[in-house]
């Protein structure tokens, strides 16, 4: 927008091409139509499309539906956002509600909801923020199935910056946590392209947001410094005692492991797991698959479990043992007590683990 003294454009108002002129007092203000900057990264393009699609959608709803939004905007009135007190119009409320819905993976809402629900802060235990991990732990699980964990982030490149609330960008909406863990590492890399650097500052804004009709209001908003230990307990990163498909070589000469989800829990030591196997050789009492290195919590663990045959004799129950070796040998061994028909089987459950 440019302010010009009224000489050539005295009493001129209206639009020509991309230029619009209007009189403000004794001055004429010229403005150009807003255009996107030339920079167009995929996330920027996505955000712009999402916004413009939502704006266009408002013009396509019926008059009755529009009146619903007008009424809701009137009830909603003035609300407090991280950017201050705001009066909202029906179209803006429509755009706001549906923008959040889209970010939460919900379809566009033509009918105004009964109410707009304020977001709430997130309770969690710790945060690892280092070049390899962006991980929240022991995040309280929401009891409301409509709530998602909404996260915005922004790296800070100037060390003097400690506040820039309007710089954060949407990163992820998580509908659930992984037993209290929320891993943002991959989403951050996808969004910003480069990993965090030690000493760098990062802004994180997050809240529990109702995906149906929520808006960001109350939220956690913090500036953190990237470092080698966790933000609250000062602990060096250590992983859960977990093995999954990414850590094993699933296909060997004798067996193909089609599913592997194994974790240790305390209380002496328990395993809860779910493993699916397809044997390529019928007459084996035991067979191995190699792994690519496991957390230090694993040394040489063995559990004795029920298994269920899923081929030949459906549902036949067998006894199986799973031995995870993570010292001299780097392998997972499956053992049986009998040579019976079991081309495919699954084993699952919670059992004690023995060393």
């Amino acid at each position, binding site marked *: 927008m440019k302010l010009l003294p009224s000489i050539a454009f005295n009493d001129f108002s209206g639009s020509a091409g991309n230029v619009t002129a209007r009189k403000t007092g004794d001055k004429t203000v010229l403005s150009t139509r807003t255009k996107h900057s030339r920079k167009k990264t995929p996330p920027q393009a996505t955000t712009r499309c999402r916004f413009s699609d939502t704006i266009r959608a408002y013009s396509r709803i019926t008059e009755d539906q529009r009146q619903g939004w007008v009424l809701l905007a009137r009830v909603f009135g003035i609300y407090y956002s991280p950017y201050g007190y705001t009066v909202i119009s029906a179209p803006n409320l429509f755009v706001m509600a549906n923008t959040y819905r889209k970010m939460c993976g919900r379809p566009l809402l033509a009918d105004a909801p009964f109410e707009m629900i304020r977001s709430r802060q997130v309770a969690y235990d710790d945060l690892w923020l280092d070049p390899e991990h962006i991980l929240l732990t022991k995040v309280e699980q929401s009891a409301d199935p409509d709530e998602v964990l909404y996260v915005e982030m922004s790296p800070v490149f100037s060390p003097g910056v400690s506040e820039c609330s309007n710089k954060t960008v949407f990163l992820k909406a998580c509908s659930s946590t992984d037993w209290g863990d929320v891993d943002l590492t991959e989403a951050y890399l996808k969004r910003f392209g480069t990993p965090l650097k030690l000493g760098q500052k990062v802004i994180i804004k997050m809240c529990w947001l109702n995906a149906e009709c929520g808006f960001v209001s109350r939220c956690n908003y913090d500036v953190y410094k990237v470092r080698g230990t966790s933000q609250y307990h000062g602990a060096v990163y250590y992983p*859960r005692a977990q093995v999954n498909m990414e850590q094993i070589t699933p296909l060997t000469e004798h067996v193909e492991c089609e599913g592997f989800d194994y974790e*240790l829990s305390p209380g*002496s*030591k328990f395993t809860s797991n779910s493993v699916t196997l397809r044997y390529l050789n019928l007459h084996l009492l035991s067979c191995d698959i190699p792994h690519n290195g496991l957390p230090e919590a694993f040394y040489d663990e063995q559990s004795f479990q029920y298994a269920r045959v899923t081929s030949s*004799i459906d549902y036949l129950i067998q006894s199986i043992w799973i031995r995870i070796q993570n010292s001299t040998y780097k392998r997972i061994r499956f053992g049986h007590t009998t040579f019976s028909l079991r081309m495919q089987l699954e084993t699952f459950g*919670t059992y*004690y683990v023995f060393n």
Partner: protein
Amino acid sequence: MITLNTNNFGGGSVTLKDYQSSGLCILNGKITVDPTQSAYMAATRLELDLPADFVMGRSAMSTAILVSNASIYRFGTVLHCWIENNTLCIEKLTAWDTHGTYEIHINAAFVTRGYRGTFSQTPTNSLSILNTATFLFSQYRYVEKDDFVFFVATFTKFPDYNTQGQGPFTLELSGFASDVLVEIPLIVNGSEYVSGQKGSMLTLGTFDNGNLIFSYPAGATDMGGEDSFFNFFAVRG
């Protein structure tokens, strides 16, 4: 004891023996399921509401054993069983529905996940079989805690219907907690398979006063013997 009064399959109240802590729960008991109930037919999984004050709202995967009403062998299998939203959830399998009302036995542990920290080793206790002419372990693990026990055993010597008849048989043990009273399914498939068989041959046994007592049904063929086994958690007292 906890009572589960409501469920989604038209069953009656269920009482389970329980041990509860925030990270570990043990449940023991039997659920009777009538597959002719319309609620059962509509259900995709079996759900039983846990008491409001049950400490674990969600668990990792655990197990239950389906014991069907199939003639003689009571064929059955192991089922997925877990806690979700304060509800005990059990996988629904319809393979034996035509045999009528069946039982689901739960003698299992339920744990939570997401732990980061150190682990201690599981302490095991020794057991001795007193009647070794009839029973011999292939391998076993026995864990005895103040509130519950875990016992898994496979056998190289175990009563065989063909040679030893129906029983009753008693596995006499030295070292097993005398205050455990629990009924468990025994997997006694033998080495032969019945034509068109689905699942394993099962019989029920009872641990009482430190010993396991069980018998086989009349008219069975090749039931029990080597490689029979069991695997269970049980609350003490």
